[in-house]
């Protein structure tokens, strides 16, 4: 049984075995990784500390234990982080503090300036999607492995792209510099990255690459939108922050939100795989229904947990910027609707009997609701959430 395979094989990046003695289970590599993180944080403080306020520094330091935990739990995360650091620093050093270098340096122009890196991310995501589908269609392990490598490459380029964009914003002007999660363009990149990373984690955790075709499809759609947005609306241009967005709450609210959205998108794609498999389509190639159901639940659980935090952070921010933690602005209201929807989903699952296709359908519909909250509100409704209007 597939399940037995999952449970018996110790996963290379699987969960730390038992809560009591995980500290002892850490090897030399783990400690080296931790040391590298600490050094990296100090390097960042020393190099860029001048542009940071107390909160920035606090958040930076907070990332050390967070990334340490992630890397200890999920070993594949480390080379990724190292690659991102290498690419970003290479790009930054090529800039030599001058924006114009983006046009002069070949490497910057065609490889690792922010726009180009994000273009590479887009291309790699499309390629990875094709590879995963090919793997599914031909039952080719090789194609699926290729898909995996391409996805890692895509998130590396995308993440580096965002870091470089952050740096570029400071080159435009010290008062303009800000973390690139402040408009629709930037959060679409973030969404693609986080969804891909979540997928890569589950791929390892459940030992199956068969879901890549489905999850990468939704990321491809996001990237497609991103490109449309870039080419028709020039949305990629770095803009300074309007006063309402100048808040450290933004820096925690937005990424938290997108972990939620990413996880919900993932669950919906797994849900659609479930619905297909249930009807016998691709059934022999997809993981067993129990596994699909489990991934779907796990994704919604993590999405719900993060979305809860994100909504609360949003309320805290609103309390400071607008004077009210909640005022039924369309964006807020739709966040509540998304949240209620998944709360109902979780309760549904707890009541006996509700399993299977009903929950899978619900997860798929959930993505529609999420998409409306994410995009539809900006397109069709007006409100206070002024960033990212289409």
């Amino acid at each position: 049984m597939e399940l037995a395979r999952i449970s018996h094989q110790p996963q290379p990046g699987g969960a730390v075995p038992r809560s009591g003695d995980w500290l002892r289970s850490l090897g030399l590599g783990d400690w080296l990784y931790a040391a590298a993180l600490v050094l990296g944080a100090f390097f960042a403080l020393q190099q860029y500390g001048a542009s940071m306020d107390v909160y920035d520094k606090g958040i930076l330091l907070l990332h050390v234990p967070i990334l340490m935990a992630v890397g200890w739990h999920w070993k594949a995360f480390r080379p990724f982080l190292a690659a991102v650091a290498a690419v970003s620093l290479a790009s930054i050093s090529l800039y030599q503090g001058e924006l114009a270098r983006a046009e002069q340096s070949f490497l910057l122009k065609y490889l690792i300036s922010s726009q180009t890196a994000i273009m590479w991310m887009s291309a790699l995501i499309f390629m990875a999607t094709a590879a995963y589908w090919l793997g599914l269609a031909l039952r080719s392990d090789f194609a699926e492995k290729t898909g995996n490598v391409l996805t890692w490459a895509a998130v590396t380029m995308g993440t580096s792209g965002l870091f470089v964009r952050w740096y570029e914003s400071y080159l435009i002007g010290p008062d303009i510099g800000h973390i690139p999660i402040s408009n629709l363009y930037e959060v679409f990149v973030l969404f693609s990255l986080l969804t891909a990373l979540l997928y890569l984690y589950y791929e390892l955790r459940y030992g199956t690459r068969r879901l890549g075709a489905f999850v990468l499809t939704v990321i491809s759609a996001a990237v497609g939108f991103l490109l449309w947005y870039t080419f028709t609306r020039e949305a990629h241009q770095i803009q300074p922050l309007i006063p309402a967005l100048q808040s450290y709450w933004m820096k925690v609210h937005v990424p938290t939100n997108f972990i939620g959205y990413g996880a919900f998108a993932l669950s919906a794609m797994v849900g659609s795989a479930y619905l297909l498999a249930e009807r016998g389509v691709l059934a022999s190639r997809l993981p067993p229904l129990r596994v699909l159901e489990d991934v779907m639940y796990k994704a919604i659980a993590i999405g719900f947990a993060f979305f809860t935090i994100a909504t609360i952070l949003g309320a805290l921010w609103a309390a400071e910027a607008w004077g009210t933690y909640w005022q039924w602005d369309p964006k807020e209201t739709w966040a509540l609707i998304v949240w209620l929807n998944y709360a109902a989903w979780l309760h549904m699952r707890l009541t006996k009997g509700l399993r299977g296709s009903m929950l899978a359908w619900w997860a798929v519909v959930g993505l529609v609701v999420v998409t409306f909250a994410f995009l539809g509100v900006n397109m069709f409704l007006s409100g206070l959430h002024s960033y990212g209007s289409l």
Partner: protein
Amino acid sequence: MQRGTARALFELLSSMRFAISLLTILAIASVVGTVVKQNEPFNAYLNQFGPFWFPVFEKLGIYSVYNTSWFLVILAFLVVSTSLCIIRQTRPMLREMRNFREHAREASLRQFSHQASMVPASGVAVSLDRARAYLARSGFRFRASEREDHVLLAAKQGSAGRAGYFLAHGAIVLICIGGLLDGDLPLKLQMATGGKQATSGNQLIADIPASARLGTGNPSFRGNVFIPEGRSASTAVLNVGDGILLQELPFSISLKRFHIDHYENGMPKRFASDILITDDSGKALERTIEVNKPFEYRGITLYQSSFEDGGSLLSLAVHGLARGVPRLTNMQGAVGDTVPLHAGDARYTLELTQFRAFNVEDMGTAKDSDAPASGMARFEQHLGSGAKSPTQKNLRNIGPSYTFKLRDEAGQAREFNNYMMPIEQQGRWYLYSGTRDSQAEAFRYMRIPLDVEGKAETWFALHDIVFDPALRAQLAQRVAARSATGTSAADNGMRDRLTQTVEHTLTLFADRGYESIGRFIEATVPAPERERAADVFVKIMQGAVWEAWLMTRERSGQAAPALDENNAIFLRDSIAALSDSLFYGAPVYLQLTAYDERQATVLQATRSPGKALVFLGSLLLVLGVFAMLYIRERRLFVLIKPNEVLVAMSSNRKAIDVDETFQRHVDGLRELFAAPENRPT
């Protein structure tokens, strides 16, 4: 109510099915308020929905969904349902948390979906010791129960997950109650019980009756405080439906200065108010309030909400456009004021409504050669840094502007928007003045061209001559005389005809500008000839206005203007503006000549007693949700007989990791029990 019914009601309200229905209903109800824009002025809704639907929707509370009683009832149900659910679950949950189920029967353990049987290599006592050690090491708490033929170790872990249930669901109740305290409800109660009544917003603060004033003791409110620079305020205005209530504040706030900083590209960078707070304690506090940096004092939080004009003083040059209005006079007024304005015999009131010191506009691409690239070139434009853009915006501050309404004696008002400085368009300079009939329209702009010396007076002088019926004949004669210089009879005849034509054209033009000339052509010239005819009329107008220009120069003793390209363009622009001026809708053009800006800040003042409750609830919610989702309750039973060990596991959540964990424990225990007697555990 009978016991049975009460019981059934309790069962229903606290049931999971009811909870799910409620969550769904709440979600759907929330949608309504996002589709219709909330809390707009009633007029806007009347326009949007028409006289039939407007009152229907008003009854349903569509304009303020989240404050309607039906919405509050849904929320109340959620609170009730969740509370009952907690009450109902408390006993079983506590029992579950305490209970080890050490009395489980062997037969029932054998029914578990997770169970495994193994053969121990040693006796019961040794196996028992080993099992205890294993369970302790694996983080289980356990109880042993000895039966006649076996020993049962009943172990569990992760019971704290159940506490998560109380945290999360209790938090929902807290948050809803806190939200209710901060919402409209307290105000509605005060209005219902305290005889408070909203009043019209169009009156002086001093005139607002006591029935529309709320005392400083009001526990919960949210209102706006409007303070012009150099003035102070000690009341906040609460919008209630279409009226207002006045909230007294326990202190007075004066605005020293309001700042708006801009980025280089003209986007706003910072809004900040330097304020001074004084209260009866005699203390004075100086603070700066910014967006995202509120300030709390005596339980009231002040936020930077928006800004307005606080009565900037405007100096205006009044250029007469209609007949009988003096060429140039001066006047002054402050934004917010209503000033009488006499234009000849007509009486108007001038309402100065707004002033803006900065206007950053995208002036379009500077060069025409910036055509969008295509194909690979277009793609390459999007490589590189995020700082560049293929379509460069040409943002420029085009200086101050102000808006006003001009109301005639019949009460009809037109709105105008004038820029103070001339604005450049393709190397030429113009004064821009926009006008519109109603708020719903966009401004249509009249562009008054400046002459080569950069003065607008030339155009006004041309305006006076061209539209003066007394000068029309003279002007026509001069045009004709310049064109036909001969003295023969034929020349005289031609001159007369030309004079008539010019005079006729000027008369036509004076009515509705190019429009009446166009109509005349359509009425009298056959279609194929019209274009040529139009050319002729344009030439005639150019000749006439050129002549008018010469006349103004003669009057002021200046030399004639040069006949060059520049002046030709000026002539063309002047005629266009003359034509437009006939539709301007005002007898005067009001040119802003100087200003003394005074800004006003709008602060939001709130007292929200529920905030702490909501934030506490939020914290508990997060803790509870994580505990419920991630602390996994597991029960492990190890039943030890002389020749068999039965291991069984149960969990309150079905998930694959239960299988995984069970397998791990079975593997671990199997290895343990299979070891020979003397191996240390």
